[in-house]
């Protein structure tokens, strides 16, 4: 057989065709001006509130409650609680999500528990955990973990399920072990979806922590609930605003972490 040149064909170096590739090097800017919107809005809101607290006429009691030290201590405590809850949620739901995608029989049971955790009123959940255990930091963390498990569990399952079966087929076909397929292919590809679930859990935690006030959680919930109970509207408003801003900022940070963790090829 002589050279296999087909007359209808151009030389190999020019061969191309089919789907158009995305343009050029394809790398979009990692940060854009959009990333500044949330911090800016939060900074303005917090700045305005601090200005108000410093200049408005507050009752003596409110003034003694709303010192910089107390607020910042509460905020730090609030952040600690939120991170503890989110960390526990991740540790609990990612392995379960992986297990569910391997052993499909587990799915209804796992989702039942996760759904129940979210369906039970969070204030009831907090009370139940406190009843059977004790009050303080960890009972709050545990009960809010139960509450926030669902988004991460569901996203882990969805994130793993949505991966193109052909990619997994190719991975197995070339001789990757099941663990290799999971860690080298499936999990990296599921990162954006799992991370989105984690952000939801984080925001849920920040917003629900004030309920832990009833069992001595600490955090900004103390300020908020005192403000409500004692009709100290300025205190209540300030605490609610700080909780909201905290949720926005942590979600924003989560978004950046998500981007860093997402492999460049699918960003």
């Amino acid at each position: 057989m002589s050279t296999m040149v087909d007359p209808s064909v151009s030389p190999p170096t020019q061969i191309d065709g089919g789907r158009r590739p995305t343009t050029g090097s394809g790398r979009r800017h990692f940060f854009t001006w959009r990333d500044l919107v949330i911090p800016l809005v939060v900074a303005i809101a917090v700045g305005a509130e601090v200005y108000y607290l410093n200049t408005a006429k507050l009752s003596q009691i409110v003034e003694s409650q709303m010192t910089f030290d107390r607020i910042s201590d509460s905020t730090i405590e609030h952040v600690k609680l939120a991170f503890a809850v989110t960390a526990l949620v991740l540790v609990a739901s990612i392995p379960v999500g992986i297990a569910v995608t391997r052993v499909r029989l587990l799915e209804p049971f796992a989702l039942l528990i996760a759904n129940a955790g979210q369906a039970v009123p969070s204030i009831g959940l907090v009370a139940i955990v406190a009843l059977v255990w004790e009050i303080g930091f960890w009972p709050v963390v545990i009960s809010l973990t139960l509450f926030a498990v669902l988004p991460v569990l569901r996203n882990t399952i969805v994130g793993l399920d949505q991966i193109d079966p052909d990619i997994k087929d190719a991975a197995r076909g070339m001789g990757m072990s099941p663990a290799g397929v999971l860690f080298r292919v499936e999990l990296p590809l599921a990162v954006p979806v799992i991370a989105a679930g984690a952000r939801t859990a984080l925001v849920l935690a920040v917003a629900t922590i004030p309920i832990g006030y009833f069992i001595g959680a600490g955090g900004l919930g103390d300020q908020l609930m005192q403000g409500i109970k004692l009709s100290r509207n300025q205190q209540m408003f300030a605490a609610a605003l700080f909780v909201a801003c905290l949720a926005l900022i942590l979600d924003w940070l989560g978004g950046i972490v998500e981007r860093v963790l997402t492999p460049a090829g699918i960003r």
Partner: protein
Amino acid sequence: MLGLNEVELRRRIGYVIQQIGLFPHLTIAANIAMVPRLLKWDRKRISERVDELLALVGLEPADFRGRYPRQLSGGQQQRIGVARALAADPPLMLMDEPFGAVDPITRERLQSEFLGLQEQLKKTIVFVTHDFDEAIRMGDRIAVLRVGSHIAQFATPEEILQSPADDFVAGFVGEAATLKSLALHRLTMNDLAPPVDARAGLPEVPLGASLRDAVDAMLETGHDVVVVTDDGRSCGSVRMSDVLAKGGKAAANGAAARAGSGEAGELSS
């Protein structure tokens, strides 16, 4: 090979599938390097191998190494799929409808490019396709499978075209078996009439093109002769009357010509 476990066995078979299945989160270099990494080659050897393979499939290594699959066209992606399958130099390749998902023009290009590649590689390739014309074009031997994966006929393309084993195979061959067999006959110096005077507008085909390409060129341009070129220079010609004279014998000659070159066993269903 039978002593190996499933996972190790797979690492010794180059595997190309229709949907390509490149890893979208990894660069082209990392995609190609996957099996060598599983086999724990050292970095330098892997890196050299990646460059070698990219050059082999006609993609500039410096340009393509760091790209991601989504930045490539479908045809380029399938070539990376082939390069990835070849990475650890497996003795056997399994290609499952590798060109099924690309448009007809790209498919034709990839087919001829791959035939050229196979000239260098000389690997045993099991090539699965539902496209009988592709089977004729790519295969040295074709196994036609009937329902239940029973082999209906296992023979060279020429034999299948000329004497299908039964109605099922004949149905697979479809209409115009003689016309299809023209595609099997590659032009060699022995086939050629002396060069004709170069007239403007005469169709040209390169040496090694098939008789079908020659006929196609004649039909397209309305001439009854086609100039055969070797390295761009005229080395002979083929006339329509020669083709008619050979007629049904073309396939038989083609069969003889190909029997000597059957280094790759290709199956098709």
